[in-house]
C-alpha cells in the first residue's frame, strides 16, 4: 500500500487550469522529486497535499485514508517552504517545537524532540536565536528541522535549497539523502534544478503543461526521456536537436547533407524525426566516417570543456568533454565527430514524443 497517493487531481481558477488530472502514488520512505520549470504549479501541488489549498477535483490519500476534506493540521505532514516561513516572533527552538506542542507533547518530549533534529541538522548552537539573527543557511536548516520535528509520515519540501548560496546548496545536496532516509518519511521534493532532482530522487515526476509528462527513475528520465521537452530540461549543456529524416533502413540520419550512422531502430526507417544528441555523447575522431565540423568556440564548464561546433552544412551543436581529455582542440580546428548511441534520441517532429524504446 502506498503511503501517499493522489489521483485525478485538478485545480482551476475560473477557466485557467493550473493542472489537470494529476495522479501519483509514493511508497513509504520514497523520495519523489516534482520537477518542472517555474510557473508550472509545483508549489501549488504541495499546498494541495498539505491541505492549505483545495483541489477542484480529485482525491488525496495519506496512509490509505482519504484526507481530501481534512484540514491541514490533521494530515500529519511536515513542510519546508522556499522562503523558510519561520515564525519571526519565536526563537529557533520554539519554531522547531511548534509541531510537537501542537500535539500536546509534554515538556520532556518537546525538549528531546527538538534537540534530536537540531543535532541532526547541526543547529543546536543557535536554538536560542530569533529567525532574524540566523544566517540564510541556518534559517533553511531551522525550517527543515521544524518540518521533521514531529516525525511526519509525509514530508513536503518546496525548493528548500533555492535561497541559499551555491556552496551551501551543494553541501546540503550531499547531506539531504541521508537525512531524509533517517526520517523514514515519504518525501515530495520540489525543485527546478535538474541536478538536484537527479541527485536526490528515487523517482522524478516531470510536471509540464499541467500534467506529469514523465514519471521515472533519474536513469529512465535521462537515458530515455519520453518527450523532447523532458530531454531538454535534463542536462547541462542542453541536448542538441535537429529536424531531419531517417534513411530507409533507419540506420542513417541526414545532417545537413551528410549521412551519419546512428544505429537506431530500423522500423522507423524513412520518417521525419527530431534528432537529439546529448553533448557528452559527441565524440571527436580523426577518421573520415564522422560528421565534418569546425570548432567555433571552446568554453570550459567546471571540470568539463564545452565546444561550440558547426558542421559543414551549418548545423550548430555542442560537445562536452572531460577537461582532462588529452586533446582539447583550439578554435577554428577542423575535425570529425561521431555520436555514442546511448546519447542519441529520436522524437516525433509534431508531438515531440519519443519514437523508440
Amino acid at each position, binding site marked *: 500500500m502506498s503511503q501517499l497517493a493522489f489521483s485525478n487531481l485538478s485545480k482551476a481558477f475560473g477557466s485557467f487550469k493550473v493542472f489537470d488530472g494529476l495522479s501519483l502514488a509514493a511508497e513509504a520512505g520514497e523520495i519523489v522529486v516534482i520537477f518542472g520549470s517555474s510557473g508550472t504549479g509545483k508549489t501549488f501541488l504541495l499546498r494541495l497535499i498539505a491541505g492549505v489549498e483545495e483541489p477542484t477535483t480529485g482525491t488525496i490519500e495519506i496512509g490509505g485514508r482519504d484526507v481530501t476534506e481534512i484540514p491541514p493540521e490533521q494530515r500529519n505532514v511536515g513542510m519546508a517552504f522556499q522562503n523558510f516561513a519561520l515564525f519571526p516572533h519565536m526563537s529557533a527552538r520554539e519554531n522547531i517545537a511548534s509541531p510537537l506542542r501542537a500535539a500536546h507533547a509534554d515538556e520532556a518530549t518537546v525538549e528531546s524532540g527538538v534537540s534530536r533534529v537540531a543535532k541532526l541538522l547541526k543547529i543546536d548552537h543557535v536554538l536560542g536565536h530569533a529567525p532574524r539573527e540566523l544566517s540564510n543557511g541556518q534559517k533553511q536548516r531551522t525550517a527543515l528541522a521544524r518540518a521533521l520535528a514531529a516525525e511526519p509520515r509525509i514530508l513536503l519540501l518546496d525548493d528548500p535549497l533555492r535561497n541559499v548560496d551555491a556552496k551551501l546548496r551543494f553541501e546540503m545536496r550531499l547531506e539531504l539523502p541521508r537525512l531524509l532516509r533517517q526520517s523514514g518519511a515519504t518525501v515530495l521534493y520540489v525543485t527546478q534544478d535538474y541536478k538536484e532532482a537527479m*541527485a536526490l530522487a528515487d523517482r522524478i515526476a516531470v510536471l509540464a503543461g499541467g500534467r506529469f509528462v514523465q514519471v521515472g527513475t533519474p536513469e529512465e528520465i535521462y537515458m530515455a526521456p519520453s518527450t523532447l521537452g523532458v530531454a531538454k*530540461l535534463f542536462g547541462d*549543456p*542542453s541536448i542538441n536537436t535537429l529536424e531531419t529524416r531517417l534513411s530507409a533502413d533507419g540506420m542513417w540520419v541526414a545532417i545537413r547533407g551528410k549521412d551519419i550512422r546512428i544505429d537506431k531502430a530500423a522500423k522507423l526507417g524513412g520518417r521525419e524525426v527530431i534528432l537529439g544528441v546529448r553533448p557528452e555523447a559527441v565524440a571527436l575522431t580523426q577518421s573520415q566516417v564522422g560528421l565534418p565540423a569546425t570548432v567555433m568556440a571552446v568554453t570550459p*564548464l*567546471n571540470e568539463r570543456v564545452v565546444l561550440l561546433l558547426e558542421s559543414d552544412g551549418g548545423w550548430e551543436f555542442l560537445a562536452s568533454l572531460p577537461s582532462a581529455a588529452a586533446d582539447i582542440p583550439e578554435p577554428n580546428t577542423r575535425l570529425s565527430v561521431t555520436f555514442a548511441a546511448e546519447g542519441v534520441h529520436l522524437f516525433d517532429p509534431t508531438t515531440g514524443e519519443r519514437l523508440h524504446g
Partner: protein
Amino acid sequence: MGELVLSKLDKVYRSKRTSVHAVKSFDLTVKPGEIVALLGSSGCGKTSTLRMIAGFEEVTSGSISLDGRVIHTLSPSQRGVAMAFEAYSLYPPLTIGENIAFALKAARLPAAQQQILVKNIAEMLEIAGILNRYPSSVSGGQQQRASLGRALVRKASLYLLDEPMGQLEPQLRAVLRGRIKHFLRENNCTTILVTHDQTEANALADRIAVMEGGVLQQYATPAELKARPANLFTGAFIGEPPMNIFDAKITAAAREIRFDIEGGVSLAYPVSDFSPDVQRLIAGRREVALGIRPHAFHIGNGALRGKVISCQWLGDQTHVAVDIGGRTVVSVSHARVDKQPGNEIGLSALAADLHIFDAETGRAVAHGGSPA
C-alpha cells in the same frame, strides 16, 4: 581592440563616519582583443573597478589608460567604451530593435547598414523574433540578451559586460556562451566581464582576475587558476565542486613523505614523486594545508577510507561524498559510479594532484611535484 592598463588603482568611499577602501592598489593589463573576467563575491571591489573604467565613479588615485590614452579624467561618453548593464537599462519607450540600434543611429550610420548589424547581432542572441516588441513585454532573459546586443553591436575600443548572462534561460546558456566568445574573438574585442559566477568567467575569459577584499588575488588563465592557485583563497574559491582542504602534518622520512590528516588517516608518497625543490620546501614544515580537487580523487581502494554518505549521478558525472574521519570529502568522476551509502570505500590521489599551502599565510608552497 585597445589595450587597457589599470595602474595603482584605488577607490575609497568616504562618508561622515566611515570610509571603505573598496579597491586597493589594483594593477591590471588587458591585451588588445583579450577577454578578461573580474571574478569575486559581492563586495570584492569588482563592480567599483568596472564603474571606474566606465566613468561612473571617480578614481581616488591611480590611472586608467586605453590605447595609451589616459581616460579616467574623461566623461563616460568620451572613453569609447560600450557597456551591458546588469539591470539591462533598456530604454522603455523604444522597441528591442531600436534599443539595439540606438548607438548606431547616434553615430549616423546609414539605415541599411544599421539594419544589417542589428539583424546579425539579434540572430546570434536569438532575439530576431522580438525586435519589434517593447522591453516591458519580453522576459528577463530576453531583456538581458537585448542589453548585450546593444553593447556588442557598437564599434568600441573596450566592451564592459556586467553580469551579462545571469538571467539567461538555462537551455540557451551554453550555446550563447560559445557564440559570444566566438563573436568577441572574431571581432578582436577587448572585453572586461564582471561576474560572481565562476562558471561564466571560466567559459568566456582568456584570463581571470580573482578579487577579494579589494585586492587582486591572482591573474591567470582559467587552466592555470585551477592547476596552480596562488593561495588558499583562490584554491578554495575556484573549482566546482570546491577543493577539499585538509589540515595535514608532514613527516618527511628517507623514503617517503607522509601527510597525516585529521581523523587518523594519512597519504604517503615515495620521495621521488616530489622534485628536489619541493622536498626542500617541505623539509622545514610540520603543518600545511593540503588541497585535493574532487576530480583528482580515484574512487576505489585508496588510503583515505570512509563510509559513503551519498552517491549522486547527474547524467554526465557522479558526485560521491565520503565521511572520512568525521568530515565530508567530495570526489567526482566523469563516469557513472554506483556506491551504496554506508559502504566503505577508499580514495586516493596522485602526488601530482596535491596542492600544498602554507598553514599560516595560505600562500601556495607547491602544486603537484613542483614548487608554486
